[in-house]
């Protein structure tokens, strides 16, 4: 029991450490794209450790197995990359300087965000001219 409690405490501390580092990265790094790295990675391991600790606690200490923590982990792993990509796309779209440092696609077309934006601008132009 004592060993289990020590293991659970360690997991909580490890989780807290990585969550803290993730938040610190978000606050400390100089630009948006670098800042994205903190919350997308450091927090997954942090939350993972916390959830393992929670499962162990309910299973060993309370004697009442709990499994829905797995679901939280699953949803976190599914949603973190999507959020990061949407933030990155919005940033590329709104920040003209950032577009300058993008690498080439290596394809005859451009990046999806910018191509779609161009298409939108053209359609807006045609709309206004047809209204006029």
């Amino acid at each position, binding site marked *: 029991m004592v060993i289990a409690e020590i293991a659970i405490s360690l997991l909580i501390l490890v989780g807290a450490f990585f969550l803290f580092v993730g938040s610190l990265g978000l606050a400390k790094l100089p630009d948006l794209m670098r800042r994205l790295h903190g919350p*997308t990675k450091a927090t997954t391991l942090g939350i993972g450790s916390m959830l393992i600790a929670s499962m162990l606690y309910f299973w060993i200490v309370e004697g009442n197995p709990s499994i829905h923590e797995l679901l939280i982990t699953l949803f976190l792993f599914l949603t973190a990359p*999507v959020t990061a990509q949407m933030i990155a796309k919005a940033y590329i779209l709104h920040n003209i300087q950032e577009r300058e440092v993008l690498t080439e*696609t290596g394809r005859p077309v451009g990046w999806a965000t910018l191509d779609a934006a161009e298409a939108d601008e053209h359609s807006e132009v045609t709309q206004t001219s047809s209204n006029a």
Partner: protein
Amino acid sequence: MARLFPHPILSVVITLVWVLLVNDISAGAAALGILLGWAIPKLTHPYWPDRPRIRRPLAVLEYVGIVLKDIAVSNIQVAYLVLFRRGDTLRSQYVTVPLDLTTAEAITALAGTITLTPGTVSADLSADGRSLLVHCLETADPAATVAQIKERYEGRLKEIFE
């Protein structure tokens, strides 16, 4: 069988998620989960005309294992960079990963994996869906990063999905 379960993978996922949601491994929860896993894909079938094909289900387990290990490693690397390096000295840059994958499911899995693993975040897809824009937090050799992504993740996903 295909008519009863138009999306077998979705059915399995719904059943598992239901059992996890009610937080109760019992026959009753499993029965309701199976019922939902049968009914939801059946009712929503018109909206899901295609279904992903998983050619090698066992390779999925191997892939998940590798990704989980890489997530742990990447956390430690990013923690080190955040704590001990000044933000403006990090050699961050974009790289382009040309894709051999063609199915939407495989590319989604690859983009998600890239975001969760060492020092990389996937940022955008080319308009024709054939290359991926990836931002690296710290890289001395962009070509090696791209080669690693292609070999470690894309090769395995290609075996699983295509």
